[in-house]
């Protein structure tokens, strides 16, 4: 809801993330590292915030992206669909250092959309009769069984887009789109890392994927005025 600031959404990563506090719930876009806002994640690392709840499909790779925050012990809980590709998650979980909430990938996407769309919940067929439906309401509707799933929302969303205009309208690039447009709708403060910022009017009104009302801050990494420490910039 980038509504309190008409202009001046362009910020450094440090400015954009200044409000992120210990214990925050943060959505992070990307499917693995594809479409992940790596510069914003590096800034999260630099800020040293901890006890984070991360909503993201995965937790990066060992030492890269969100995987770096995990190694540093900054993540308390992860909500996503596929963590087994990062062995560090398995280790942290088995040591009791990381709480995990697992959702089917389509449910994760839909729950984020529902959070952004002001819905109270939805019934999905995915997961019925499985371990992932345990403890959840299962209900017959129109002759089929569905699980009730609840919306997800966050304090902050960190997303990666391809281009922004100065108002904050966004377009994405190829399969780097994935969860990013959904997360843009479901957090109180939405920061978009972009490859390019163009003047208003340069994006086709029919092709804008994320209208500007969803975006609070635009960060163009090359223009960051805040130096990023070496170990973080490797991400």
């Amino acid at each position, binding site marked *: 809801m980038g*509504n309190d600031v*008409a202009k001046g959404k362009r910020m450094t990563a440090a400015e954009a993330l200044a409000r992120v506090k210990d214990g925050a719930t943060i959505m992070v876009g990307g499917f693995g590292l594809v479409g992940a806002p790596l510069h914003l994640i590096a800034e999260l690392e630099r800020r040293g915030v901890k006890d984070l709840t991360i909503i993201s499909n995965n937790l990066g790779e060992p030492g890269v992206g969100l995987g770096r925050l995990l190694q540093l012990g900054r993540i308390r809980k992860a909500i996503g669909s596929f963590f087994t590709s990062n062995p560090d998650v398995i280790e942290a979980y088995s040591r009791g250092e990381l709480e995990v909430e697992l959702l089917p990938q389509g449910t994760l996407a839909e729950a984020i959309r529902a959070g*952004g769309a002001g819905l109270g919940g939805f019934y999905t067929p995915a997961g019925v009769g499985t371990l992932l439906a345990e403890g959840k309401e299962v209900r017959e509707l129109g002759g089929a069984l569905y699980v009730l799933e609840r919306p997800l929302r966050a304090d902050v969303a960190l997303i990666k887009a391809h281009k922004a205009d100065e*108002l904050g309208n966004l377009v994405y690039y190829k399969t780097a789109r994935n969860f990013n447009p959904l997360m843009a*709708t479901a957090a109180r403060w939405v920061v978009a890392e972009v490859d390019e910022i163009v003047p208003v009017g340069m994006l086709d009104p029919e092709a804008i994927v994320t*209208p*500007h009302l969803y975006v609070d801050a635009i960060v163009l990494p090359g223009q960051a005025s805040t130096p990023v420490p070496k170990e973080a910039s490797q991400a």
Partner: protein
Amino acid sequence: MSGAKPLEIIARRAALELQDGDVVNLGIGMPLLVADYVPDDIQVYLHTENGLLGMGPPPDSDHVDPQIVNAAKQPVTERLGASYFDSASSFAMIRGAHIDVAMLGALEVDERGMVANWTVPGRAVLGVGGAMDLLAGVGKLIILMTHRTRDGVPKLVRQCRFPLTGIRPADVVITELAVFRVDKDGLVLTELQPGVTLEQVRAATEARFRLAPELVAAGAAG
């Protein structure tokens, strides 16, 4: 009361509620007039629920594109930076509180701020449009209406006689006589329109309301 028409008085005052950067939905009918009074030094972005963010004013007759319309199906224009989207995406913006302000008309508002603005009792219920979604979802709900019906019946009432549009109260009610804010205890009169007295407002209002401290201080209560 000045010589201006009631609707103009209301729209002019309503525009002052807007802040720089606000995303605003003006519904249909009278609130659309507010667009003409937005102060020059702020930028607001008009959302219309049929699928456009960045709505501009009606075109002149030579530049009508019949496929760019507002929620009242009237031709409008597209501003720089506008975007188009489907109806589900548009109402996701509304229900999800991504619209900062909605300004809607009403048939009645009760003393708790509850709004009736979509149908009248006894008539077949055949139209609602986006009224209930807007009421339930937008950030700030501002009701614009004449203080009384054409027949002189107060529209700020103790309890709505008309079917409610939802259970979310208005935040602000603006009439040609006064401005009310709604808090948890109900209506608070915060402002008299120029030239209007408190007695005039009392006489035209069925709902009970309190006076804002600033009004008391200004002596309106006298």
